[in-house]
């Protein structure tokens, strides 16, 4: 694995400077840390979303390697075609025998959890040799902060507003990482932009494996979350420490917790850092917060069991 010092000397990896991501946005760091682990050139597909818009406005591009965006729901299907073309041309001897490449598909939580789930499931099931990265900021941020199935319960978005009757999103987010793990992929992992070493180690491991790989990487969005851009990494860590976003991986079927939490912080510690949860801290929502905490505790307990960590 490349460490931060080695990576800081690499300016040809992932994204060039000058892209248009917001101050405090996590995805440029995620790309840099993941792409730094690839031993081979990377071909990237990206779903429509903030990342694609912020990095590619014609005639400029921030991408150091070959990159294609075509639509919102098809990042995984597009990378399937690229990886298959590579296989076909390699087999026919139409690519240099020594040429190695990695194939990475990227989507936000909208392009991955929701509209792109079918294409993702198909690509994983067909066992393409690809890495899919979901940069998960828990809502459709590119279109102006609408709820996704990754939005946390109680979270305020523009389509799940904290109203007088309904206090934000009603449902708990779906467990996409477990859904992908159930496809018998070689690697599925949850990471966070707040834990660099863990994130880079997971990318290093994933690039070293042959077959479908999936990384669900958590990153705050200062615009959608109403958070301090200077606190992005701290907030990302807090999500892990409250067990709202546990760090774990399923490599070749083995579940493993990659960050143990000795003293679980209450979810309210996380809520305090963001405007999207402001309403949950009011007395009338105490019962809801209690229910959410219970659900977080239950899921954490289940995860520990699955990872053989006991309770």
């Amino acid at each position: 694995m490349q460490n931060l010092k080695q990576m800081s000397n690499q300016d040809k990896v992932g994204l060039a400077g000058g892209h248009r991501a917001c101050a405090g946005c996590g995805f440029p760091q995620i790309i840099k840390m993941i792409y730094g682990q690839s031993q081979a050139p990377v071909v990237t597909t990206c779903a429509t979303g903030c990342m694609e818009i912020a990095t590619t406005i014609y005639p400029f591009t921030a991408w150091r390697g070959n990159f294609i965006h075509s639509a919102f729901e098809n990042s995984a299907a597009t990378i399937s075609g690229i990886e298959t073309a590579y296989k076909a041309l390699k087999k026919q001897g139409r690519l240099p025998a020594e040429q190695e490449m990695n194939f990475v598909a990227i989507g936000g939580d909208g392009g991955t959890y929701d509209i792109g789930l079918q294409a993702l499931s198909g690509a994983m099931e067909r066992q393409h040799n690809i890495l899919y990265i979901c940069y998960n900021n828990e809502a459709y941020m590119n279109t102006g902060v609408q709820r996704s199935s990754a939005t946390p319960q109680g979270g305020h978005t523009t389509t799940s507003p904290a109203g007088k009757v309904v206090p934000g999103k009603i449902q708990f987010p779906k467990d996409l990482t477990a859904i992908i793990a159930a496809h018998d992929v070689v690697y599925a992992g949850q990471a966070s932009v707040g834990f660099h070493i863990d994130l880079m180690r997971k990318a290093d491991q994933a690039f070293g494996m042959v077959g479908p790989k999936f990384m669900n990487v958590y990153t705050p969005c200062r615009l959608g979350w109403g958070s301090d851009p200077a606190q992005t990494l701290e907030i990302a860590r807090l999500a892990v420490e409250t067990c709202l976003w546990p760090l774990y991986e399923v490599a070749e079927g083995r579940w493993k917790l990659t960050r143990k939490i000795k003293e679980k912080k209450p979810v309210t510690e996380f809520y305090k850092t963001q405007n999207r949860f402001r309403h949950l801290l009011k007395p009338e929502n105490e019962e809801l917060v209690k229910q959410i905490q219970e659900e977080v505790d239950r899921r954490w307990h289940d995860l520990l069991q699955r990872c053989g960590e006991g309770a």
Partner: protein
Amino acid sequence: MEKAIETMSSPRSAGKAEPRKATLARTGNEAMAEAMRQINPDVCAAYPITPATEIVQIFANFVNDGLVKTEFITVESEHSAMSACIGSASSGARTMTATSSQGLALMYEMLYIAAGYRLPIVMAEVNRALSSPINIHCDHSDTMGGRDSGWIQIFSENAQEAYDNLIQAVRIAEHPDVLLPAWASTDGFIISHGMENFELYPDDAVRQFIGEYKPAFTLLDNRKPFTLGAADLQDFYFEHRRSAYEGMRAAKKVILEIGREFGDKFGTAYGFFEGVHLDDAEVVMVALGSTAGTGRVAVENLRQRGIKAGLLKLRVFRPFPAEELVQALAHVPAIAIMDRSDSFNAQAGPLATEIKAALYDAGQYPKIINYIYGLGGRDIHFRELEQILEQTLKAGKPNDLNSRVVYWGVRE
């Protein structure tokens, strides 16, 4: 007139050295699958759908029996099929797919993107009605729905043409002046499942005709990385869309060149359309696909009764051969335009709309009756086509919507 003739198909030319052919009994689907085997694409991504399923099935057998070098992606939907084709074609691989109806409709979003990226993807399409209500039989609403997507669009009268057109589609799409995706279509069940005599050209001859694919760019070359599909705003989007128009304009010349070359090599030359008894015709039927076959019989029957009827079978719908078409129809006083789909503009079917626009620009104002017919596979008999031709000949110039557009054979 000479120029117009050139744009039409010519009958089998004698005397040219033709490669040995095998005469077989094949359905349209089998013929298209054979074309795909001979084209031998690097990648095929496809999803089964009635009535195009067989193409995918037969081709899967070719793959698993080692008769082609193709990598076959068994995608989970047509949207993913076209998305995977876009990924593959952007990576320098010759790429094909097949679909029909709802499958094509699910691809619509990606059809525009394939054309916008100037990717020469080739598709075997089987025309089928669109839901709702659900119906698996032939009409042209599926491909007409994609008519403004930037794809080259070729209709086939029978299994032979489906095969010939699919082979030519590869050359047309990949031509450096064109670089647009192309589909060749047949009529669902009528052609896709109807068995006919069919001439299979030798594999070597087809492969030689197709030639090696030299992609304009590839994502698999990392020496000069590039970004495809950047966000494109007010300052460049217009120019990029305009470039697809340039490709479509160039396709007109290329389609004729390749149609002629195909004739030299395999015996049947192809143009934009084919005329039957056009020269002295007093009434002409314009039709797409299998109905043209039925129309031939109707026209001959009427000729025997002394009625100067003619047929214009349109083969290429995109690019639309407007100038050539109006030239071929310049002397015709009465035209029946047969639309096997409705555009629901409450004015005319898609074919009639195009032809009327072309005639207006040429300053030609013949009597035109537009017949919407055969939706959802409702049969059309040659006797009915005779009636349509006679009726069109006798009718006064239509002066209202009901006389301009006739829903033929519908129970009111």
